[in-house]
């Protein structure tokens, strides 16, 4: 990939396995390959979208990047420093996360003011009046007002809670934020508000996002580049326009064909690619290409050799044997 920008984040061969105990009387442990050998980089000020079905490992990837899970293998390089093994506290100030479920991710026993203020205390960013002013400022920045600081999370609606979650993430003035499906738990009418707010914040504060979602049209709207994950693997990564116009991987093609079109005529003409079967278990993924069990183009080689994740046209990466000729 040729990039003029300095990459704020580089992820190399990131792998996260979880061991699962099979049962009460069994000592056998099996391994869930949640994220398997994923590499990507994000330039400063850019938004990288990450899409895929439920359970494909995109949330795990996002959490592992922030070391909320310890990576099994691989390297995470933030702003030129390898943070795979370091003490994370100084980096928590620079890398933050917006969580998926605004109902569960705020401590019910703390006031909104304390939720937002606590990171400032920990990183010794502000005290006393300054702390208070910053909390008020952050609340206003996310479209709430300062009277809300003394209330508890349960007194808010879902959209408001997510705003609190965003204000909390912004409290340490981070450079990079992982947005883990920040809108999927919200009403459709609220989703657009939150996404627009995230965009405005990005422009005014110069933020970089890793935007995880399963809503393809939303991801297209907010992302500069989009990565598609399937069963723990990154299968395609390209500029969002390119990916949506010329999807290379059969899985991406199938995903994109599922986006509803608002025009009934065009909708009728559009051919929907229906995938056969279910997603295989990440405990025992298929050999070779992981998508081969559901791929309409699968051939013999797909079962034998794992396709390499490589550039098929400028800045367009794809892992598929169809482009290996």
């Amino acid at each position, binding site marked *: 990939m040729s990039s003029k920008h300095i990459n704020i984040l580089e992820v190399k061969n990131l792998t996260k396995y979880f061991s699962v105990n099979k049962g009460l009387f069994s000592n056998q442990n099996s391994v869930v390959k949640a994220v398997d050998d994923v590499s990507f980089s994000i330039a400063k000020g850019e938004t990288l979208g990450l899409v895929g079905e439920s359970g494909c490992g995109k949330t795990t990837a996002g959490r592992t990047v922030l070391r909320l899970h310890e990576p099994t293998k691989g390297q995470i390089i933030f702003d030129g420093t390898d943070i795979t093994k370091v003490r994370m506290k100084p980096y928590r100030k620079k890398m933050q996360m917006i969580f998926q*479920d605004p109902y569960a*991710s705020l*401590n019910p*026993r703390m*006031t909104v003011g304390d939720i937002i203020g606590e990171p400032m205390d*920990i990183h010794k960013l502000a005290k006393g009046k300054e702390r208070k002013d910053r909390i008020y400022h952050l609340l206003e920045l996310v479209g709430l007002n300062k009277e809300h600081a003394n209330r*508890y999370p349960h007194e808010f609606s879902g959209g408001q809670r997510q705003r609190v979650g965003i204000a909390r993430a912004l409290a*340490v003035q981070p450079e990079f934020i992982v947005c883990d499906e920040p809108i999927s738990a919200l009403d459709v009418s609220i989703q657009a508000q939150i996404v627009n707010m995230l965009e405005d914040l990005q422009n005014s504060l110069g933020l970089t996002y890793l935007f995880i979602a399963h809503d393809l049209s939303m991801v297209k709207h907010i992302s500069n580049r989009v990565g598609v994950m399937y069963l723990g693997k990154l299968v395609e990564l390209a500029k969002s326009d390119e990916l949506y116009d010329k999807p290379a991987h059969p899985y991406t093609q199938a995903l994109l064909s599922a986006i509803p079109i608002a025009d009934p005529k065009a909708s009728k003409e559009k051919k929907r690619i229906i995938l056969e079967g279910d997603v295989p278990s990440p405990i025992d993924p298929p050999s070779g290409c992981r998508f081969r069990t559901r791929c309409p183009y699968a051939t013999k080689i797909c079962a034998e050799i794992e396709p390499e994740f490589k550039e098929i046209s400028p800045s367009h990466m794809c892992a598929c044997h169809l482009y290996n000729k």
Partner: protein
Amino acid sequence: MFGYMIKRFAYSIFTLFVIITITFFLMHAIPGNVYNSEKNLPPAIVENIRAKYGLDKPLSEQYFTMLKNTLKLDFGISMKNRGRPVNDIITEHFPHSARLGIFSITLCLFIGIPLGILSALKKDKWQDRLAMIIATLGVSVPGFVVAVLTQYLLGVKLKWFPVIGDKTIYHLILPAIALSFLPISFIARLVRSSMVEVLEQDYIRTARAKGLSERVVIYKHALKNSIMPVVTYLGPLIAGVLTGSFVIESIFNIPGLGRYFVTSISNRDYTVTMGVTIFYAVFLVLMNFAVDVLYTVLDPRIKLKN
């Protein structure tokens, strides 16, 4: 809040009234009398005793006299202990029970809660298994067995602690262990199960993402959210432990209030039974009120409404 307190106070008075009434009629319903256990007394003496304690009057009259005296906080005179006022019995023996009780409650909190936290953090590891084996033992082995075992091993064999009495804090160690082994185990289990659940919550991940140290995550975010069941259990526990345990106090020869609960009933010592029951009930009502107030402190979602 103030309105709630008033209302709560009125409810408490009503609760106490019901307890007093039920206790009164139940204890008079038990066959036998305070003078029954003595050798066959001449009828004249029996008449004398009945007249002295007002037992010759109709039950309803006795009941209202008792209510009136209770309002004056006068629980009467013990029928068995030769004219000793019930109030004196309580003020003399309660401190012994309370001292042991406070010591036991302290043990419960400072051992039970950390044990539960440790179990939850090391879930399914050997520390957890060990703690839960101890906790299972604690719940299933009766207090008097623990009492006698510790007396024999730590007192008689190793001579670390005195075996009976409650003169010094050293005397209190063995009875406190015997008294708190069950609550410790119970609290450890309560803390473990709710903590395991809380540790999987999203807001714990949020706390970690903020950059908080593991200690702050556990004590500030997780513990405060998982302490609720312990608080619920603590109300009746404190009331029960402070007012004394008959078995433990007998084994360690501690002159506490506990034995009066039991002996007064078998002696049909009506006034003592009544006084001690009211004392215990007031304690329980107060503790439950304290628990309800504590709920609102611990969980802002709970509001005390009028």
